[in-house]
């Protein structure tokens, strides 16, 4: 299991190239990548992500531990960036490897649902009109009831 919280960009291809390669029983690899969207109604120039150093790593580790307990996984990877990003930049990724695709898919969705509203990250959108903290969505909180 690998958890990384970093300012630097990451390369999805390079990350998965070495992922779970020592586990020859893993026939299914799922990845999710979150990308800074270009908002149509305003000109998003920068997305700034703040986090809580120390707690962030713990929270992500606890979420990944939960996933590893609930599903039969060969490996889990979580990378989340903080700092300033531009539209099109990759914010974060999760990867799950499992023997069967159902485990890999469900675990990746679980990781995303929890990471969205239980890991201490906050997004701020900076546009030509000013800046605004992104509001949490009721649907993201509701997504947790599924698990």
């Amino acid at each position, binding site marked *: 299991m690998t958890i990384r919280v970093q300012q630097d960009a990451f390369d999805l291809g390079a990350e998965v190239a070495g992922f779970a390669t020592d586990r020859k029983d893993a026939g299914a690899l799922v990845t999710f990548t979150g990308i800074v969207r270009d908002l149509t109604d305003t000109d998003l120039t920068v997305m700034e992500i703040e986090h809580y150093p120390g707690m962030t790593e713990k929270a992500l580790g606890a979420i990944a531990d939960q996933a590893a307990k609930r599903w039969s996984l060969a490996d889990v990877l979580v990378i989340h960036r903080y700092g300033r990003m531009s539209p099109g930049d990759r914010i974060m990724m999760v990867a799950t490897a499992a023997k069967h695709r159902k485990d890999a898919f469900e675990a990746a969705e679980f990781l995303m649902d929890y990471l969205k509203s239980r*890991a201490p990250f906050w997004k701020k959108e900076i546009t030509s009109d000013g800046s605004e903290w992104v509001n949490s969505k009721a649907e993201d909180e509701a997504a947790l009831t599924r698990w």
Partner: protein
Amino acid sequence: MIDVMYFAWVRERIGLPKETIETRAETVADLVEELKSREERYAMAFADVSALRVAVDQELSDFDAPLSGVREIAFFPPMTGG
């Protein structure tokens, strides 16, 4: 002595990311009341605690959590990661 940390718009309203305070508050809620009575900027930041989350020693917690033995408290809006 407790380290109190603020993130996102809570940090911006209060105007600092972290402070160390001495308090006799017994719960998180007591500490919030104490801070609100201090200065307008705290009163503004904590006006609606239902819009806030709290972490006690880096674990998500509740406003009625006791402060005994606690070293670090953090206040912030709901998370928006991912």
